[in-house]
């Protein structure tokens, strides 16, 4: 049982980090970023190239994943999303754009990195084993790093100037603008930050599960699940959703093992019931 809980906690930490980026972009611009999973994959491949192929330290790989994705995110916001939001009659049009950017990133990833599954050498060797609990050290490192990033993100949003500006934007765009927040600038920073988070998780997880170009879509779906559980557009909700999904997945895989591959069916059925009681998730703002 301890094993299941530790696994769930480890999964939850990485899931929460994925969901954070998605929810940040949603909170700031009301955009459902379909390309989130693809951004994760891109981050993973960049880390693979730098750490796995060029042999540079893992930290360098992680930083370059984050930076590249931040640049990609900033460019997407500046040249694509901003324009479409201004010109479109209905704000749902951004979803079409988000889906198109997902296809675009998929294509770029396929062309640059191919369709093979890629892995890298372990970052830390060895396994922790005290009889009833088994945990490879590299998973521990990744889990702790993920939690550190989450903590860093919360602190940044809470106490830094850009963080405060972004929270103001999420609360009320017009009011924030009237108070002198540079709306365009901080929206761009927010999008870049969200994309960067996706890239960092990709970079982290390439060390454990490896990466391949096909998993972008499934990752996006998981991120949506988490955001639905926790509530869209709320930092606390994304973290809660991530840990809950991680825990459910870990417990479900153990408890429902004899019924075959039904964990996600059960999770979805539970989610339907849950959403009919609380349509906005655990702590979502009304009518996201």
């Amino acid at each position, binding site marked *: 049982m301890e094993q299941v809980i530790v696994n769930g906690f480890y999964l939850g930490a990485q899931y929460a980090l994925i969901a954070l980026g998605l929810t940040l972009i949603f909170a700031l611009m009301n955009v459902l970023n379909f390309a989130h999973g693809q951004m994760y994959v891109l981050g993973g491949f960049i880390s693979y190239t730098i750490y796995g192929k060029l042999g540079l330290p893992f930290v360098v790989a992680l930083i370059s994943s984050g930076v590249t994705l931040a640049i990609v995110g900033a460019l997407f916001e500046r040249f694509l999303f901003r324009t479409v939001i201004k010109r479109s009659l209905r704000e*749902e*049009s951004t979803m079409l754009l988000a889906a198109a950017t997902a*296809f675009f990133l998929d294509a770029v990833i396929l062309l640059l990195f191919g369709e093979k599954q890629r892995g890298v050498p372990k970052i830390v060797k060895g396994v922790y084993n005290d009889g009833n609990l088994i945990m490879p050290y590299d998973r521990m490192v990744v889990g702790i790093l993920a939690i550190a990033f989450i903590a860093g993100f919360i602190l940044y949003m809470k106490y830094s100037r850009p963080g405060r500006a972004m929270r103001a934007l999420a609360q009320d765009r017009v009011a924030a603008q009237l108070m002198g927040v540079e709306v365009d600038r901080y929206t761009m920073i927010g999008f870049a930050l969200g994309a960067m988070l996706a890239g960092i998780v990709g970079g982290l997880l390439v060390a454990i599960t490896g990466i391949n170009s096909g998993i972008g879509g499934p990752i996006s779906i998981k991120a949506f699940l988490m955001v639905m559980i926790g509530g869209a557009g709320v930092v606390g909700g994304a973290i809660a959703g991530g840990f809950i999904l991680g825990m459910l997945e870990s417990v479900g895989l153990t408890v429902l093992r004899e019924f075959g591959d039904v964990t996600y069916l059960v999770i979805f059925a539970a989610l339907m019931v849950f959403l009919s009681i609380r349509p906005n998730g655990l702590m979502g703002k009304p009518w996201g």
Partner: protein
Amino acid sequence: MSPPVKILSVVVFLFAVFVAVPVMITVTGRTDFYYTLTSVALLSIASAGVWLTFYIGRINIGQGAYSLLGGYASAILVVDYGWSFWLTIPAAGLLCAGVSILVGLPILRLRGVYFAMVTLVFTEVARLLALALPVTGGATGMTSIPLPGAVSIFGLTIIPDFASLENPRLAFYLLAVTLMVLCFAAMYRIVHSRIGRLCQSLQQNEELASSIGVNIVYLRLIAYAISSFLGGVGGVIFVAISQSIYPSSFTVTDSVNFMLNCFLGGLGYVFGPMLGTLVLYFGWDLLFEAGRFQLLIYSSVMIVLILVLPNGLLSLGLILRRKV
């Protein structure tokens, strides 16, 4: 448009799809176009359903689930219970509508991104269900489903047995196009009726509509049920053409594509989904020549299109008129 122009354009359209296209294909000998155009017709039926949910202000990315459900229902009824294929079209459609009412009761309360996300996950669930349930045959799917049989009333054969035809492609094309015409005629009627106006009020402001006395729960269920019915019907014919169905026949990508068809054509226009499907499907097919750059060019063109015409292809007319 004035009434005479409207009637004329309908006649031209019907002539084009029922006479001009088959003649053109026979003359040029490109029979592979039958398959492409049939697919476009079927996908546009399913997209029309998605469009209707857009019309009540919901983003529906779950149409693939209903197409899969409809396809499986038809295949199981035909193969295991020996039903006539023609009966399974309404049966599967109604099954999808029924399921959508059950699913819709809780999830139609959600709005915006929440509804979009739930429906997206729903497609994935349909795939998982198809893999897990015993009747569907799991990952191997169902194959060699018989072609549609003959239909006769009072000894008079109305529809011949598809297996005995020398050109089943043409038959399928005519079937799909007929259904598409019926579907869009019905959509046009719905949108221009009392219910259509009420749906538009939902799209603008549900609370306000409700306060005036519009039964919003009932209306959005109806719209969602019709939408799922169309998704199911599209799936049924698709299965009949390919004579097989797998859990991966309709995936999240298909659901997203149905949505994209609507967006690209224009959310404010009944015939938007038809145009959007045609452009997207043909665009993808034409780019096959580009080999490994196919997806890159396709997505880039799509991004440019969205930047230039964020309100859909049909909004081009609006822009031109405004300039004049």
